């Protein structure tokens, strides 16, 4: 009953926020409730009968959280989880309020929360978790954290909240250092030597352990072949289908598998778990495919250099690309080590940091057709269907010379029918691709009327 009033106020605030702006103001109820009932978050998070599970780290936490939730639900466990966009204090409180009954109680036997690596330590300052699962430490939003060691420090504080176990990536040297302070049980997961060797650019961790873990130490990703991977669990190979190609998805799956095994104990069913993992909907790169303005469009979110590189490698080839960088990237310096040359050509560069993005692309040898800082204009132009008979674009023929430079010739290109489209990519039926940073993603979604991805 203690939080009935706060819950009611939170509901009213949410209603008011939604009346004012459809779909808007999702963090405001959380803000208000945190002010009038500061103990609510702790109370709600510690009231789940099977406890609270935290998933955090630089990269892969959303995927790992979704995989873990799917596995637990397949075992018949009622799970409360947060959308990945609500992983800081206000948003988290708001998402709890959304699910809460009138007394403020949130249904579910267990809570599995994705937590922002920067805010997690502060949110969890006085809250205990049963299990904390840590994915990795990457050079990530350097302009926000200034130093990856700061991220390690924050994850160390988060790990200290675990009362039963910490599940860590055995290949990540930053996490290995942090593990020496852990006083509860440690469960490990990681890549086999073969999987590691097959990732020519490495796995992207800020620091990597030099030796791979043995199969007796935890869950090992034994192999990946396209979207099929094998997890080695206590001497038994378990085949799974990944939501998309990429060793990082297999490692996310191993993290989720190891955490589910810890949480369920004797109730853990390997087959139920691998089936739940394999049934997850496919995703494209680190992104998704949407249907908008009568066409399929791939949306790719840039979160850090490692995922940016993976995305560039998967997008590479003939595609029609819009690249948007927003004000969330204060200083894009840390993205410069990414090899963008695989993009070849970008039709439009947009966003409040469009000049910075164009500069980065130019020095990667990527041809930039146009810079349009106004994202709304850029989106309208990019998604407009080609009109027959109109000269809609200048086709750029790029050819890579031995020196690595790109020689450019420009050819006027007339569209004779809508089938023969604007660019080489569209002519081959490839979907348009929007690569954006978090802020540009929010603006793009709002402009196109797309709902937030969970």
């Amino acid at each position: 009953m203690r939080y009935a009033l706060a819950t009611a106020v939170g509901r009213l605030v949410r209603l008011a926020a939604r009346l004012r702006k459809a779909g808007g103001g999702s963090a405001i109820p959380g803000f208000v409730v945190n002010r009038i009932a500061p103990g609510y978050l702790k109370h709600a998070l510690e009231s789940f009968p099977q406890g609270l599970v935290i998933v955090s780290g630089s990269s892969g936490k959303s995927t790992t959280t979704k995989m873990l939730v799917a596995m637990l639900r397949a075992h018949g466990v009622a799970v409360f989880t947060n959308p990945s966009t609500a992983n800081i204090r206000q948003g988290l409180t708001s998402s709890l309020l959304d699910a809460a009954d009138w007394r403020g109680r949130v249904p579910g036997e267990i809570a599995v929360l994705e937590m922002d690596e920067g805010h997690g330590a502060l949110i969890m300052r006085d809250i205990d978790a049963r299990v904390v699962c840590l994915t990795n430490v990457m050079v990530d939003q350097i302009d926000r954290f200034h130093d990856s060691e700061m991220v390690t420090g924050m994850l160390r504080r988060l790990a200290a909240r675990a009362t039963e176990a910490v599940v860590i990536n055995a290949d990540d040297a930053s996490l290995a250092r942090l593990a020496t302070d852990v006083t509860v049980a440690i469960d490990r997961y990681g890549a086999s030597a073969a999987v590691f060797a097959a990732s020519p650019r490495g796995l992207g961790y800020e620091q990597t352990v030099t030796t791979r873990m043995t199969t007796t130490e935890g869950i090992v990703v034994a192999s990946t072949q396209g979207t099929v991977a094998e997890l080695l669990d206590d001497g038994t190979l378990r085949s799974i289908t990944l939501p998309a190609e990429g060793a990082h998805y297999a490692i996310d799956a191993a993290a989720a598998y190891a955490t589910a095994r810890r949480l369920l104990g004797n109730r853990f069913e390997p087959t139920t778990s691998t089936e739940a993992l394999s049934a997850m909907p496919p995703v494209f790169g680190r992104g998704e495919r949407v249907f908008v303005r009568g066409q399929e469009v791939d949306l790719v979110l840039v979160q850090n250099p490692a995922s940016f590189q993976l995305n560039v490698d998967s997008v590479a080839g003939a595609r029609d690309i819009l690249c948007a960088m927003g004000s969330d990237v204060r200083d894009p310096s840390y993205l410069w080590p990414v090899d963008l040359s695989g993009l070849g050509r970008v039709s439009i560069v947009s966003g409040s940091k469009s000049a910075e993005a164009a500069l980065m692309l130019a020095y990667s040898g990527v041809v930039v057709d146009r810079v349009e800082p106004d994202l709304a204009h850029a989106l309208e132009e990019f998604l407009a269907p080609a009109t027959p008979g109109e000269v809609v674009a200048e086709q750029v023929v790029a050819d890579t010379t031995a020196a690595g430079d790109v020689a450019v010739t420009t050819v006027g290109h007339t569209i004779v029918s809508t089938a023969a489209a604007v660019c080489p990519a569209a002519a081959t039926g490839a979907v348009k691709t929007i690569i954006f940073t978090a802020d540009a993603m929010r603006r793009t979604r709002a402009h196109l009327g797309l709902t937030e991805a969970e």
Partner: protein
Amino acid sequence: MTLTIVTLAPSLLNTNGDSENARVLARRAEWAGLEASVIPVESAADLPARVDAVIVGSGNDSSLERAREVLLGVQSNLRAWATEGVPILAVGTGWELLSWGIEFVDAAPVEGLGILPGRAVPHDGRITGDLVVSHSTFGVLVGFENHAREYCGAEGSPLGRVRTGHGNGRGSGQEGVVMGAVYGTHLHGPVLAKNPTFADHLLGLMCERSAVPYRPGERTRQADGYAADARAVLLGPR
């Protein structure tokens, strides 16, 4: 003839993309119709026969000792290059390692390579933000600073005067240090891409030593247009 730009210990000293300044020099050389290559040097064995420019980037303090070991392996080369006038750009911790040394609050000082005058001294709290510097011939230099220490002993030959930001600190109002063609700066990331006058000065020195002409190409002008727009966001309209 190929212009060869080396990056020192890029696996440790490229946290903020500082080593990518080598790519900026190489691209601008190529756009000017010259041949250029970038050679990553992780140990003395990787050194090419001829070096036309050197980039030393910034890293984390946890890898400071390892980075120092790599630099010590090429210390005599660095001295020779500095004396001969080979342009050297050192950023952040890379610069600190080329100085007399680095001091800490709670640990013994780390001796530097002594290529640049001055030393890095502790500061309470990390210094981060936009950094704008006036230079006598390059004009206004813009970038971002992200460092844990201040720098003293550069008062006699700083890179420039701080207009916005912290720079070397300790009340100096100055940023960076210059010794011949050796530059130390807190301006991290692709400072040469954002500051074409600085880049072309270094390229000019490289070409002069190799007796080849340098004239910026068409794509250089396009890239510099993006740089001007990026600078305008920080400095106001052109």
